[in-house]
């Protein structure tokens, strides 16, 4: 059983398109996150939800919109994709804030 699963694993798309990445955790955790890892392998927080409520919203373009339909799911929708959006996006979860994180295997997004 995969604890934190995200789909798709790979996403190749054209500039200007809209795409979504889905994430689900079966650990019963309250808090979920989206991190972005760029080409230099730097892992940076984008958003965090605690029990479906947005608690962290870093300086991210408005084209990125997270949605948490329930505490086990956190999806990321990206509008009008740009070349600079190419990166690996990781979903993660934790029991509460300030706890160790459990990461998904990542979604490699390539914008052409």
């Amino acid at each position, binding site marked *: 059983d995969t604890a*934190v699963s995200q789909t798709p694993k790979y996403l190749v798309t054209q500039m200007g398109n809209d795409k979504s990445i889905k994430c689900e955790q079966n650990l019963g955790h309250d808090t979920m*996150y989206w*991190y972005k890892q760029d080409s*230099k*392998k*730097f*892992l*940076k*927080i984008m958003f*965090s939800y605690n029990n479906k409520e947005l*608690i*962290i919203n870093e300086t991210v373009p408005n084209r990125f919109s997270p949605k948490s339909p329930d505490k086990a799911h956190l999806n990321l929708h990206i509008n009008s994709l740009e070349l600079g959006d190419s990166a690996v996006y*990781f979903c*993660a979860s934790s029991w509460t*804030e*300030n706890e*160790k*994180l*459990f*990461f*998904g*295997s*990542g979604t490699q997004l390539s914008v052409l």
Partner: protein
Amino acid sequence: SQKIEQNSEALNIQEGKTATLTCNYTNYSPAYLQWYRQDPGRGPVFLLLIRENEKEKRKERLKVTFDTTLKQSLFHITASQPADSATYLCALDNGQAGTALIFGKGTTLSVSS
């Protein structure tokens, strides 16, 4: 601004030796420091957490130290094995609500047999 530095991007050692990785930080007061391992094409995996009032933590062949005066953590892998080859990430947490882990860029460890 907050800054986390991991001493080198790459570290090469021979099997059986002890690997020591360094994490330094500035302009930050972490309540916790965490270490993660990341293999190519995979997400980071949690290894150890150490609190600001703890000097040292051990788990099997792993040892972490935390010196808040020096603003530094050392991560040791004793009796290293080729299977330990991976990227190791240091992450800081100030323990406050509404904040998330801040990661360093990582050190890629290669253990040769």
